[in-house]
Structures are given as C-alpha cells and as structure tokens.
C-alpha cells in the first residue's frame, strides 16, 4: 500500500532559530498516526508545515504522490488535507452552522459526502447549538465544531493538532469516540498530542518527536510496551 502522506528531511526555521531538523514521516491509507512529544518538541510546527501555514526551508512533503512543500494553505486544503489547529480557531462571531458552511467543499468522486446534516448525526451536540455564535461555545464544543468543520471539506486526510488540549476528561473521551468512529470508516488521520493516554486509545501507529527530530516510531502496541521511550520523551 502506498503512503498517503510522505514527509522527508523537513526543516523549519522561525527567524534565525531552527525548530525542525529533518523530519521524516510516512502515513498510509487508513492509519491514525499519533505524533507524540513534549511541549516545544516541534509537533505543532510539523503540523503547520504540512498544512502550509509555515513555509519549510528544506525537505519534501508529498501528498498522494504530489509534491506540496511551500504551497499555500488553501492549495494544500484543496488537495484533500484538512488541518485543525491546536487552538481550534473557530470563527467566533459566526454561528456553528455558518462555521460549517464556510468550510463546505466537494470531495473526490465516490466518497460519502459530508453535509451539515451528516455532521449533526455524528456530532449531535452541535445541532442543538447550530445558531449560537461559535465564540460562545465551551472548549469541548468548539473542538467538536472544528473537527466537524474540517470534515465539511470532505478531506482525504485529517491533521489534528492537540485535539484534547485543555478539555474536560468527559469531552476528551467523546472526541476519542468520534475519532475511533472515523477510523472505523477508513479515515486517514495524523494527530499531534501531548496526551499519550488519549492517543493510545485512538491511534493505530505512533511516532515520537523530540527537539525537532523523530526519535521513535512503531505501532501503538509497541509504544504501549516501551516504558523507556515513554519516560525519556513523554515524561510519564
């Protein structure tokens, strides 16, 4: 099976300081990959670079075989890669429904189209809030909204940056349910997370990033067993 997303030798600088030192990643169709690491390890920067929000100085990012390093975010999104940033970034003055509608986009042929009513089905709490401005939702509701918003673009792959950050445990578990359901439908997902327990429950594979480099890669079961990696890089 060929890789959906393939990143190699990715280097990113903020001004004069280097953040990523040659990241290599490979994600295959149907995988839910967890990108784990401490605060400041380079997770978000990796996600941003893939999404086109920051421009890499070196390296290749291929999506479905197409080179896309240096593309603008909208071009990346149009290739079928949906990005959910860590601080969620709802459009606070728009209603929940409008947040979803702004993102609506046709997907590739043959895929089950995501529509607003289908989002209501998988995220019923949003339907009750449909006319509320997104800025007045709770953190958990906003997180559900931005995942739903990402789905509205009918992407072939999802990039989720810290979906569990700052949320109550009960909300985290319901987001976990959603991700497991998506995985069951065959979705391809890359999740950047600090919360390893959350990932152990939803991901199929894992990589660990530290100081801008990938230091470990295995399937999720392997990570579960590897106490050394967990204590050294994930502070558990």
């Amino acid at each position, binding site marked *: 099976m060929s890789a959906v997303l393939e990143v190699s030798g990715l280097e990113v600088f903020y001004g004069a300081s280097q953040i990523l030192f040659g990241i290599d990643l490979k994600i295959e169709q149907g995988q839910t990959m967890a990108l784990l690491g401490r605060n400041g390890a380079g997770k978000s920067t990796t996600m941003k670079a893939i*999404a086109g929000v920051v421009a890499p100085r070196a390296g290749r990012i291929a999506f479905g075989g197409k080179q896309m390093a240096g593309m603008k975010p*909208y071009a990346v999104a149009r290739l079928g890669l949906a990005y959910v940033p860590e601080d969620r*970034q709802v459009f606070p003055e728009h209603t929940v429904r409008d947040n979803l509608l*702004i*993102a609506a986009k046709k997907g590739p042929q043959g895929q089950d189209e995501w529509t607003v009513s289908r989002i209501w089905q998988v995220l019923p709490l949003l339907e009750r809030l449909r006319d509320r401005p997104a800025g007045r939702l709770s953190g958990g509701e906003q997180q559900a909204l931005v995942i739903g918003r990402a789905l509205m673009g009918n992407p072939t792959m999802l990039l989720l940056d810290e979906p569990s950050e700052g949320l109550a445990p009960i909300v985290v578990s319901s987001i976990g349910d959603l991700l497991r359901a998506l995985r069951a439908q065959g979705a391809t997902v890359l999740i950047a997370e600090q919360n390893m327990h959350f990932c152990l429950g939803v991901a199929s594979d894992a990589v660990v990033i530290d100081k801008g480099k990938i230091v470990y890669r295995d399937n999720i079961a392997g990570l579960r067993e590897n106490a050394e990696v967990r204590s050294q890089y994930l502070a558990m």
Partner: protein
Amino acid sequence: MDLDALGRCVSTASCLVTQTTSGLIAGLLLFLVAAGLTLIFGVLKVVNFAHGTFYMLGGYIAFTTLQVTESYTLAVLAGGAAMAVFGIFFERALIARVYGQDVLMQLLVCYAVVLIFDDLVKMVWGADFLAMGMPPAFQVPPLFIAGGIVPPFYAVLIGIALVIAIALAASLSGTRAGKTVLAAAQNPTMVSALGVNTDRLFAVVFAIGAALAGLGGALAAPVRSLTPGMGFSVLIDSFIVTVIGGMGSIAGALLASVGVGLIRGFGTIGFPTFTDGLIYVAMIIVLLLRPTGLFGREVV
C-alpha cells in the same frame, strides 16, 4: 461661535430639516468612500492611504467617459469598474508585498502611489481644475419636503448610497461568500486552511473597496471640482469616519459618516470657523471613551 443661531436653527422646523438633510447628503457620500476603506482595513488589515487616489481617479475617469459617451450612468459605472480593476492591480503588485509588515511600510507604499498618481493625473488631465457639469436629467428645481429643501440629484445619491450600504451589509452577513469574507477578516490563515483562495479573496475585497471609492468620486463629480490631489480631503474625512466607527465596521462607518455630516450641518451654523476642529474633537473623545471606535474590535 454663534450659539444663538444654532439654538434658533434647532428650534425651526425648516432649518432643522434642511441642515439634517444636507448633513445626510454629505455624510452618505462620505460613507461610500469610507465603506471601502473600512472594508479593506477590516479584511486585509491594511490602512489604505491611497484610498483618496481611487476617489480622485474615479472622478476623472467618469469625467472623460461622460465626454465620450455623454451618459452619466456609463460614466459612474466606468469610474467604479476602472477602480475595481485598478484595485486588483494595486493589491497584487504592491500591497500584497507588505502584508503583515510594519504599518509604516504599508503607509509609505500607499503614500508613494498617492504621489505618483497625483502627478500622473496632472500629466493626463492637466493642472487646471475641471468641472463635469450636471447631467441634464437632474437640472430641475429642488423639492420641498417638510419645509426643508431636497434636490432630486441628492435624493438619488442618497438612494444609491443607501442601496449600496444595504447591499454590502446583506451580502456580507447573508451570503456564503460574505460570511467567508468576514471569517477571513477574523482569521485569514484558518480560512485559507479550509481551502479558500485567500489571495484571490483579498484581491476581490480590495477591488470592491476601491470600486466604492471610485464610485463615490464618479457620483459626486457633477457637483465637485476635479483637481490633482483632490483625494486628500476626502481621505482625511474617510479616515476620521473609519476610526470613529471602528476600523473594519461597515455599520460603524455608516453611523460615523452620518454623524460627521450632521456635525458639519449644524457646526456650520453654531461654530462656522471651527467645524473641522469639532470633528477632530469628536474623534478624540470617541477614541478616549472607546479606544477601538464605536463598533471596532481590538486589532493586534
């Protein structure tokens, strides 16, 4: 200062109506130009100091179009359309290079455009002032409404300005494209990450803003003088309106335009030599009470 005269005017129906309508006229014409400015700032976060230049060019292009076609309607449309095209060019070629940079950089780029086009206008249309003249359809006596005087030409201008204000507000809050624009105003990166071509969106918004200024210049051309550098005073007024209303707020711009118009209308009676001073004072007071203007959001 002549507070007696002001008191007398406020207590006479005809003076009240006439000065209010003349304030509305001045205010709504100002709104057309200021709406474009506030739209551009709201979405692109660019302080467009070249906005007065669009207004000027709109007027001159309307002047020439009228000479060639003898149609005021065509002249107005040409003024607006030409500025839409020019706006796209200006945004793509110049402004796009200074996005996210120091406001001073943006200011200087716009200032350069102001200087260049003031001279270009002088080369093309001459240093002398030009007057377009009133279209024959409007060469009719004014109407008297409730003792106040309303010229038909201005009634039409008020109508057009109001239609544009409503259309702008409705398309921003009522259509998907408009909502996307508003979303981009708050968070352009996120909108881009959702697959919206923000480069094109910005260019289109800039074009609409420029077209509004051009339209303002063209609509007012029959009653105003065309001179190189004429955009300046309109620019200053538009800025005041935009700042009072809150940068980026169309509703704020409308309210502030009408407010400035009314200050002019009654200021000329009560404070004939300090009308502009009144407006600056109003702006300073508003900014002190509400640092982001009447309807503005905090801008980083």
